[in-house]
């Protein structure tokens, strides 16, 4: 059995997903192959850590569904399984009547959401797309080290640490238009995270003014963040215009959030 197949067995074992055939292969290797048994043990804390991080991420995911649900309770009630028959209908009438009683406080809560809570719901920078320089043999140059530290802080969403580092990195490369402009996205989002919307608007506009092709992968996020920054800065008309544009693009990943936010701002 090659290393790749062994790794798949180890992963399936720690994820508790071994089928009967894999289980017998695993047992045999574990008993007869010392290196394999060592690898299995070495991976134990790694997979346990992954599961804890997965649990943490899942809880955050549930909170985001919940906020979306409370902001827009009518839209988020899909029916996955079709039910038919009189009994079901009667039950639905009963459930609907009771739901009015239960939902009333939720609607009330919804209308009481503060602007900060709304902002916290929508402000979710996509840090998965950030490419942090990997450490290679021989180490990193000081500039790369600075970039790594800045982006690591940004990925942790520690904007107070990230912002000055990003600005410093940008200054180091002030002769490179490409680097200066590309850093503007992270700088603008960090400024927004630190509740500096006016500065954020300037940075994000600067980013969006850059060569179309170079920034195309990040344009959607930059526009969405700019709409949030307008809203945060009290520029309601600018925010609504931009949200409408985003909401009308079916392939835009922020389209559904833009629709929700547009609806909320329009109610005020």
């Amino acid at each position, binding site marked *: 059995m090659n290393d790749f197949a062994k790794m798949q067995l180890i992963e399936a074992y720690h994820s508790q997903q071994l089928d009967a055939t894999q289980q017998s292969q695993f047992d045999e290797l574990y008993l007869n192959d010392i290196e394999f048994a060592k690898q299995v043990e070495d991976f134990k*804390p790694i997979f346990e850590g992954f*599961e804890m*991080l997965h649990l943490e991420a899942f809880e955050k995911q549930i909170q985001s569904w919940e906020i979306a649900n409370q902001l827009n309770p009518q839209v988020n009630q899909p029916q996955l399984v079709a039910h038919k028959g009189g009994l079901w209908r009667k039950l639905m009438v009963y*459930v609907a009547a009771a739901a009015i009683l239960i939902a009333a406080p939720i609607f009330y809560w919804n209308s009481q959401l503060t602007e900060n809570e709304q902002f916290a719901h929508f402000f979710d920078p996509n840090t*998965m797309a950030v490419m942090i320089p990997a450490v290679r043999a021989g180490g990193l140059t000081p500039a790369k080290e600075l970039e790594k530290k800045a982006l690591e802080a940004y990925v942790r969403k520690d904007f107070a640490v990230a912002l000055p580092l990003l600005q410093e990195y940008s200054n180091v490369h002030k002769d490179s238009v490409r680097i200066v402009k590309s850093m503007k996205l992270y700088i603008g989002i960090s400024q927004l995270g630190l509740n500096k919307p006016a500065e954020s608007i300037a940075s994000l506009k600067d980013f969006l003014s850059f060569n179309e092709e170079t920034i195309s992968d990040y344009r959607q996020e930059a526009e969405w963040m700019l709409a949030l920054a307008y809203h945060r800065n009290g520029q309601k008309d600018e925010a609504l215009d931009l949200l409408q544009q985003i909401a009308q693009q079916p392939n835009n990943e922020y389209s559904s959030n833009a629709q929700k936010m547009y609806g909320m701002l329009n109610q005020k």
Partner: protein
Amino acid sequence: MEKENEILSAIKLGNPKLLEQLYNEYRRPFLLWAVQNYKCDDDAALEVYQKAFTVLYFNVKNGKLQQLTSSLKTYIFAIGKNLFYERFRDKSLQVVHIDEVMNTTAVQDQIDNSILEHYQNNHQREFVRQLLDKIGDPCRKILSLIFIDGLGHKEVVDAMGYSDERVVRKRKSLCLKTLREMSLQLKNHD
């Protein structure tokens, strides 16, 4: 039941959209049931619902629930019932008027709430977070998408622009190998 078992398979393969739909599907009936039967407020009912949903997800993901003997809804209500019992036991409160809306005893042996207890294990979590910070991209991204966000290989192909799932599996395997080496170095260093 066949359709619901198909839903289980889809959850296991990693399908966040489907999970969100399920969450919204059962949320209101669960809150109604909980508030009526356990005389709790909305916040408490919601907290239990979220925990029950988390237990459901991890039981499916970890293969503890592979085949449903009752509906998915019955299963999630049964988890909720267990969690309410624990809650009342912990607070020495008496459960008032439990009206069984469905028979949940049939699924009791398929439920494992232990995932919620593991949450305290901060050390392992921070250890792996530290390793991921060090490993850099694309390994950090690919491992995070699969093991932290729970995405399936197909979703990772779309998210990272790889040509097919085979490439993702191969990459993942190499990244895990690197992660192990880094973990051993880190331990030797300590």
